[in-house]
């Protein structure tokens, strides 16, 4: 029983990492209507920028480094969209071409990260305090902060989407971008802001992934991308709330399943969930018309 609570506890931490990352991917997909296969590499860039600030001469606090890494990736995402992805999307209407471009971008970023920061495993400079009990669960202080960051981020995103003009414009554009434009919404500006938010969440997601896994490598974001896909597809492609729910389901399922099978098969469990979702509920739990 203790092991089950331990697994659920760590499942909640992984769900938090997943929620941050999956919502970022979903926000961008909702607006552009294509999957960004370089998203995992965006996470790696954020993780390494945070690592440089955290362990380099500046020795910034990990959480401040995480924000700086997130903002940097947000800016990078805006620039990549402006000068690479958007021109391709305009030129080639078929989604297949733009998917290939994001694949190519993923390879370029992966190699760039490897050449700038090296391929060896790195760790953040964080306190190694002993875990403590919160009810039946066991957490480290850093894990609790990760869960708190995810909860605050999800609440802020919910507030933005339901209460602000920016959020409603994003939802309107995600629903029907031509109608949004003819209704007076500056779709170019909303696209830019969405890429920034998506990059910000990728950068933060990459750093908290490195904190919870106690290591970062150039390929860690890319490997985790398939778990993110599982969460996004289970929740419903393009649905922000679906991504949140999908993250909790996939996060808990992979950790609890690791009690019964070899933990090295966690990624395969995420794959199995992805396949089951595609077989039995291809549009996800929160299906969005025209987005599957």
């Amino acid at each position, binding site marked *: 029983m203790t092991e089950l609570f331990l697994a659920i506890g760590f499942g909640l931490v992984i769900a938090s990492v997943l929620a941050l990352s999956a919502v970022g991917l979903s926000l961008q997909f909702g607006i552009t209507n294509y999957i960004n296969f370089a998203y995992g590499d965006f996470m790696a860039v954020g993780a390494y920028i945070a690592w440089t600030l955290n362990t380099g001469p500046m020795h910034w606090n990990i959480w401040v480094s995480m924000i700086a890494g997130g903002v940097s990736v947000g800016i990078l995402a805006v620039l990549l969209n402006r000068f690479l992805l958007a021109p391709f999307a305009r030129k080639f209407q078929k989604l297949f071409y733009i998917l290939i471009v994001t694949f190519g971008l993923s390879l370029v970023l992966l190699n760039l990260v490897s050449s700038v920061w090296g391929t060896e495993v790195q760790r953040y400079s964080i306190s190694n305090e002993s875990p403590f009990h919160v009810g039946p669960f066991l957490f480290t202080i850093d894990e609790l902060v990760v869960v708190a960051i995810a909860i605050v981020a999800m609440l802020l995103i919910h507030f933005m989407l339901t209460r602000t*003009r920016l959020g*409603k*414009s994003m*939802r*309107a554009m*995600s*629903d*029907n971008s*031509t*109608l*949004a*434009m*003819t*209704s*007076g*919404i*500056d*779709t170019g500006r909303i696209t830019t802001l969405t890429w920034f938010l998506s990059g910000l969440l990728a950068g933060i997601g990459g750093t908290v992934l490195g904190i919870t896994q106690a290591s970062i490598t150039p390929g860690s974001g890319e490997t985790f991308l398939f778990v993110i896909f599982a969460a996004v597809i289970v929740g419903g492609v393009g649905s922000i709330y679906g991504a949140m729910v999908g993250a909790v389901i996939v996060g808990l399922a992979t950790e609890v399943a690791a009690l019964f099978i070899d933990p090295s098969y966690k990624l395969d469990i995420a794959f199995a969930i992805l396949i089951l979702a595609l077989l039995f509920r291809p549009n996800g739990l929160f299906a*969005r*018309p025209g987005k599957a």
Partner: protein
Amino acid sequence: MDALIAEKVTSGYGRSPIVRDVSITVAAGMITAIVGPNGAGKSTFAKTLAGILRPTSGKIVVNDTDITHVAGHLIPRYGLAYVPQNDNVFRTLTVRENLEVGGYASKKDPRTRMSEIFEIFPDLARADDKKAGNLSGGQQNLLAMARALMAEPTVIVLDEPTAGLSPAYTDVVWRQVELIAKQGTAVLVIEQNVERALTHAQFVNVLVAGANHVHGPVDEIAKLDLGGIFLGRDQTAQDLPADI
């Protein structure tokens, strides 16, 4: 006063023009209809006015301002609102949110305007928290019109607002269109149903094969053999002057 003037507008998709040298004027407080056979370019012309398609030549003027090269999202601020035939509401947003989005192009407090809109469209007031995608087709068309009116446009372009609706709901929609015109808005309606256009509009433009065929007051247009014009039988109509 003419709220909308389009002069010799040519536009289409890619390099092939669908509409060629189409001219039209729409007066404030009047309903002007564009009729024509399938493929005549009516919807393409409406999309060009709304900024979805760019004219390759010609000029579009709204309230004495040339909007030909204005960015599409700014066109509602110049006073032209557009309601497409299909996918004309934000399905995942509530009725209230749809109206709010429509009000973004207006400087007026959206809450005040929304109260006015709910008075004109009481059915929508009763369903304000419903997702637009859950409304009936007729209600969605009314919501689309209401959303367009949130920005208090001087010209509203309606692309087949009654397509696919029951006769009863078609009457409801047309009553609203007449009410909008009565309040001083210039209304341009793309209409497939010629009888309806002749019943409700004051001016009619007949578009055939992407070009102006004939236009004028509804009484004059009603005298023509529109069926023949649509089918290309009535060649004499080709020689009618643009203004009857």
